[in-house]
C-alpha cells in the first residue's frame, strides 16, 4: 500500500500548490480587465489604446449611415493621415504606430477608404458651429459624426465622408460630402 499513499500524498501537495497559485490570480492577471460594452465603439474605447480610434471611426460611420438608411459610406482621408492627430501614439516593438491607419478602418468600411487632396484642419469657428449642431452624433474618444440629413437618395447611396480635426488636432470630425461640393 506504500506507493499509493505516497502517490496520493504527492498529488495532494501538487493540488495544494495549484490552489495556492489560484489565490494569487488577481495579481497574476495577464488578460484584459473585464469591461462593460454593448457595441463595437464602446468595446474599442474600453481597450484603451490610441489605435482603437480606427474602430470607433469605422463603427461611428456605419451606425450613422445605417440610421439614415444609407449603405456603408466611403471615407476619404488626407494623404498625411498618420500625422493628422496630435495624441500619444501606441508603440509596438519600441516603435511608434500611427494612430489613424486606413488598413485598420478598411474592413469596417468595405475597404472603401481612399486618400484625397484636401485640408483636414477645421477652423475654430466651424468647430464651434458643429458643437452646437444637433445633427452631430458624439462617439467615444471625441469622434464626432455629422448625420447625413437632407441628402437625396442618390447622394445617400453614394455617401462619402471626409475626416477632419479641430485646431488642437485632438478631436475628430466626420463630415458627409454634399454632391458637387468641396469643404
Amino acid at each position, binding site marked *: *500500500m506504500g*506507493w*499509493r*499513499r505516497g*502517490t*496520493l500524498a*504527492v*498529488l495532494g501537495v*501538487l*493540488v495544494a*500548490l*495549484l*490552489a495556492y*497559485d*489560484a489565490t*494569487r*490570480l488577481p495579481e*497574476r*492577471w*495577464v*488578460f*484584459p*480587465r*473585464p*469591461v*462593460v*460594452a*454593448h*457595441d*463595437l465603439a*464602446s*468595446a*474599442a474605447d*474600453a*481597450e484603451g*489604446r490610441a*489605435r*482603437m480610434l*480606427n*474602430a470607433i471611426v*469605422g463603427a461611428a460611420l*456605419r451606425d450613422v449611415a445605417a440610421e439614415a438608411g444609407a449603405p*456603408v459610406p466611403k471615407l476619404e482621408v488626407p494623404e498625411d493621415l498618420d500625422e493628422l492627430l496630435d495624441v500619444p501614439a501606441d508603440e509596438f516593438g519600441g516603435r511608434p504606430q500611427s494612430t489613424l491607419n486606413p488598413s*485598420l478602418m478598411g*474592413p*469596417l468600411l*468595405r*475597404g472603401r477608404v481612399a486618400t484625397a487632396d484636401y485640408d483636414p484642419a477645421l477652423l475654430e469657428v466651424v468647430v464651434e458651429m458643429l458643437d452646437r449642431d444637433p445633427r452631430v452624433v458624439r462617439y467615444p474618444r471625441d469622434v464626432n459624426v455629422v448625420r447625413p440629413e437632407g441628402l437625396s437618395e442618390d447622394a445617400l447611396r453614394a455617401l462619402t465622408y471626409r475626416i477632419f480635426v479641430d485646431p488642437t488636432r485632438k478631436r475628430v470630425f466626420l463630415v458627409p460630402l454634399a454632391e458637387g461640393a468641396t469643404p
Partner: protein
Amino acid sequence: MSAAVFTLATLLCGWAALAPIRKRLGTLGFHIAAYPIGLMGWCVVALVGGLTGGPWSPVDVALGLIGASAIIAGLARLSQSSFTGGNPVPRWTYLGWGGVLIALAWAISVSGITQSSYDAVFHYASWGVWLADGGGLTEWIVGAYGPLIPAVSAGGRVLGAGWVATPWPLLSLHVLALVYTAVRSGLLSTLHEMRASFVAIAACGLLASTTHFAGQVLYPHSHMVSATYLLLSVFAVWRALGSDAVEADSDRPSWLLLAGLATAGLAFSRVDGLAYAAVPLAVAGVLRLRRGLPGAALLPAVLGAGLPLAAYYGLAFALLGGWDSDKLSGRAAAYVLIALALLVALVALAERLPLIGHSISTGPTRWVLAASLVAISAVGIARWDSFSDSAVTMYRNLTEKGGYGVLWFVAAAMMLLSLLTWRRWRTGPWPGGLALAIAVFFATAIVVHGSGHPGRLGPADSFTRVAFHVLPLVFWYWGLFAGSVLASERTGVAQVSREGRGGS
C-alpha cells in the same frame, strides 16, 4: 434578445446536423457537441453571403445554417450504416440544455460584460463586420485569423448584437462539462459514483482556477474556441476507440465523425489549428491499431475533417490563388494539407508498410513518439539558431513569464509521477491515449513555433497562449490519474470492467 436568438439558431443548426446520430452519441454527447458544431454552421453562412455579395440577409443566414446542418447530417448518414439502436434523447433535455445556454447568453449580453483587446477588435470583430457585409474570404481571414470566429462575429451582428461576446463563456462551460464527463465516466468502473463525481469536480475546479482559463472565459479570442474543439475531438476519439462504453462497432462511426468535425473546427478557429489536427489523428491511429481495427474504420473521421477542410481550402485557393501571410501562406497551407493527407494514409495503412508494418502494429505509441522526436530534431537541425532561441523562449514563458505561475511545474511533476507509477494505476488503454495526445500536442507546438520566429517573452507570446489549448487534456489526465490511484487505495486492485454509457 439578439444573443438568445443567436444561441438558439446555433443550437438548432447543431442539433439538426447531429440528429441522425443522436442516439449513438447519447443524450450528453449529443447536446454537448451541438453548440460547437452549430458554430461551424456560420462558416457556411459566410460562404453563402460571400457568393451573393451583399450584406447577409435572413435568407443567407437560413440557407447557410440549414445547408450546414444538411451537409453534416448527410455525412452522418454516410458514416453510420444503421440507425437502429442507441438511447433516445428525451425531449425535455432540449429545453433543459438549450434553456441553460440561452439564459446564460442572454444574461451575458444584457450585462454587457466582456473583455476587449486589439485582436478582439481588429482581428475578429472587424473582419466579422466585413463578412456580414458580404465581403467574402480574404488573405487576412484565410492566412491569419481563420474563418470561424469572424463568421460567428458576423452572425451575431446580423442578429442584432453590437458586440458579440457570448460564445466564449458558453464554450468555457462546454470545456468544463467535457472534462467533468470524461473524468467521471473514466472512473466509474473503479470508483463509487460519488467519489468519481468528486474527482471530476475537483479537476474542473482546478482547471477553472488557473489564470489562463479564468482569463479566457470572457475573452473574444481564439484560444477558448480552439481548446474546445481540440478537447471535443480527443473526447470523441476516446468514446470511439478508447472507452469500453462503446457498444461494439455500432456507435464508433458516429463518434469518429464527431472527432473529424471537431478537428475541422479546430483548423477553422485558428490557422495553426490545421497543424494540431495531428493530435486526434495520432491518437486515433494508435488506438485503432491497438484494437486491431482496419484502417477503413477511421473513414468517418477522415470524412468529417477532410470534406470541410477540402471545401474551405479549395475555395480559398480558387478565389485567392495563393496568398501571402506571416502565419499561414497559401504555400504553407498546401504543404500542411499534403502532410496531413500523407499522415492519414500512413495511419490507415500502417500495419501494411513493408519492413516496419508489424513493428508499428505492435508498438504504435513508440513509433508516434519516435516520429515526433524526428520532426523536432529535423527542425532543430535545419534552423538551429531560431529553434534554440524559440525553445528558450517557450520554456521561460511556460515557467516564468507567461502568467502560468507554478502550473507547468506541477503538471510536469504530475505527469512524471504518473509515468513512474504507470503499471500500478493504469486501467485500460485510454490513459496512454490521453498522455500521447498531450505529448503530440507539445511536439506539434515545438515544431510549429520552433520553425518560426523565436517569439517574445510574456503572456502575449503566441506559444504562451497556444499552451492553453492542452490544459483541459492535462486536467482530464490528472483526474483519471488521481481517481485511479484513489481507487487502487480503496480496493487494492485496479479493476477493468465494462463502463456504462457515459452520462447518457
